[in-house]
């Protein structure tokens, strides 16, 4: 998205993503090595010095404020974007990040699909792209087509069921992160 596009900002803090102990990464079950810091109204009280060591995913606002002070901890600082925060906010910084998470505050809020695609396709992000929040099992194929490779699922269904849903579709019509060529370029037309 163009940087000057204004997104409607919620008046008060919306739902925050959970950070489950187990998740799916690259098609297998994995344990979660990252802490996730929720948004807070007292964001300014956090400083680079007060941030505990170890891998942590920061809300975009905090990451933005602290990123220059945290440059020595590059491999253990990730960032999460809320659904009203687009890929262009991270932009070229994406390349150096080990993890970006995108929040789905409700499964019907589909803004994060675009965010994921743009991080991969426009900003050439190669690290872990993690879906967090209230997404559903049946969105996994769409999410993975949009570039997500990690799924911190907070719902009630088993992660094994989710793994099965990753393979709901064997082919696709349009270009995506998983298959950069649309079907019309793969039909062997001459």
């Amino acid at each position: 998205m163009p940087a000057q596009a204004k997104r409607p900002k919620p008046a008060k803090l919306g739902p925050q993503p959970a950070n489950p102990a187990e998740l799916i990464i690259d098609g297998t079950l994995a344990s979660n090595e990252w802490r996730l810091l929720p948004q807070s109204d007292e964001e300014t009280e956090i400083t680079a010095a007060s941030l505990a060591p170890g891998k942590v995913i920061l809300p975009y606002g905090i990451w933005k404020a602290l990123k220059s002070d945290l440059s020595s901890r590059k491999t253990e600082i990730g960032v999460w974007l809320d659904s009203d925060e687009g890929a262009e906010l991270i932009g070229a910084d994406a390349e150096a990040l080990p993890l970006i998470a995108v929040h789905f505050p409700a499964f019907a809020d589909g803004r994060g699909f675009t965010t994921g695609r743009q991080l991969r396709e426009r900003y050439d992000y190669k690290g872990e792209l993690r879906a967090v929040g209230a997404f559903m099992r049946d969105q996994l194929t769409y999410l993975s087509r949009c570039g997500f490779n990690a799924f911190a699922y907070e719902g009630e269904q088993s992660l094994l069921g989710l793994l099965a849903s990753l393979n709901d579709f064997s082919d696709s019509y349009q270009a995506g992160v998983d298959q950069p060529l649309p079907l019309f370029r793969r039909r062997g037309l001459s």
Partner: protein
Amino acid sequence: MYRYDDRDRAIIGDRVAQFRGQTERYLSGELSEEQFLPLRLQNGLYIQRLAPMLRIAVPYGLLNSTQLRRLARISRDYDKGYAHFTTRQNLQFNWPQLEDIPDILAELSEVEMHAVQTSGNCIRNTTSDPYAGVARDEIVDPRPYCELIRQWSTFHPEFAFLPRKFKIAVSGSEQDRAAIRVHDIGVQIVKRGEEIGYQVLVGGGQGRTPVIAEQIRDFLPERDLLSYLEAIVRVYNQLGRRDNKYKARIKILVKAMGAEEFGRLVEKEWEQIRDGAEQLTPEALAWAKSFFADPDYRTFDGAASDAALQAQAEDDKAFSRWLERNSFPHRVPGYRAIKLSTKPTGVPPGDVTDRQLEAIAELADGFSFGEARVTHDQNVVLADVEQERLFELWQAARKHGFATPNIGTLTDMICCPGGDYCSLANAKSIPVAEAIQRRFDDLDYLYDLGDLNLNISGCMNACGHHHVGHIGVLGVDKKGEEFYQVQLGGSSSESASLAKVLGPSFSRAEMPDVIGKILDLYVEQRQPEEPFIDTYNRIGLQPFKERVYARAS
């Protein structure tokens, strides 16, 4: 028409299996009502007042006879033996059982059909001109582009959870018969010299807040169709409102920021993706067009054929009337397109029985290369009929109840299912349609009135397109009672306009009289050969208002 290959079959087959699993999870309690809702909606399944309703996609209205026969069989085996053509050129079953839906979808997939994205907040079935490929005023056949859009939008991973539903219509002719100005995106195919391109409009729509679409691009090169659509939907997906579903359509976003600013954002996004993989290759365009090549037309002497038909018509007044109202000129000499009317008096507009679906298949096979088209006014077109066989077709169509010679007249109404079926409706619409049909059943009178669109919606969601009817009727709820508001002056043509409210609403019993007064005034005021909409545009709303609300003296 487009035919699936193994890849298309695999994708649709995967969807059937996926939905079978989702239905099982729902029936076993693993999925909640709320979780199942978006899944079933994206498969066209609504839970209605009386039963589930399943909406089947008919891409840009095209059906072959095999598909028609399968739809007939499904309506017999899983429903009550009838189906309903919708204003999005789709088809609905009103009485299927939830647990049968996966089997119905499997049956559909065998004939290259599905119910993908016929509902939900995603890109819906692309609609187009029912006379595509045969109209004399056609610039470029829109069907190949519709098919490319269908494929691009089917299971689009980024756009399955938009702020709200999203509808695209494509017109390839001078006259707009696809109502593109009341769609989220309207694509008008144009030519600049020999170069094919598109005029792109955004932000039109009906519903609670009717808006005429505005142009954001006057000429988009042919190869750039999909990337440009992607840019539009992407901007909408990011910026469209999600806090209020009544303000979530793209028209609200475009209105709020202005079409110029919206267009600027689209262009900026498009600049970044225009040279990407979605750019249409010459091979892809040629391939898409190859599915819509001319059928094996016979060669006729056009003048001789026209003269022979004229002579036949002079001998038979009923045939002549049918020909006048229900046939459409064809670009190939000796051929015509004809419209089968699904609107005899007393039948809900768009409803057809299983036998009638089979009859349409038979007529398509016998007269029109095995294909038929659903129209947005809920009728069926046979596009390629030899003029010398029109009399034979007319007799066959009469036998099956399709030859009501009322196309384009007052009784050829667009009408939503209304309160008889729909849980959203404020009022019934079908009984109003029927009462009007019964009052104005004199054909000489109807022909004298000429072209007149009367559209009826049972609520402000406007499925009956009342905003763009020359006469629009809207069902409203007043303290638990059903009333009807009358609007005048709408049009969905290339000179699109939104109807204006006449005044306070009426009871159902008053409606035929109200319509009668409007028609009387028109007949008094019209100039020779002046259609209703032109008279209205000339004299305005006020005289109609005075006539309808005049106190009995």
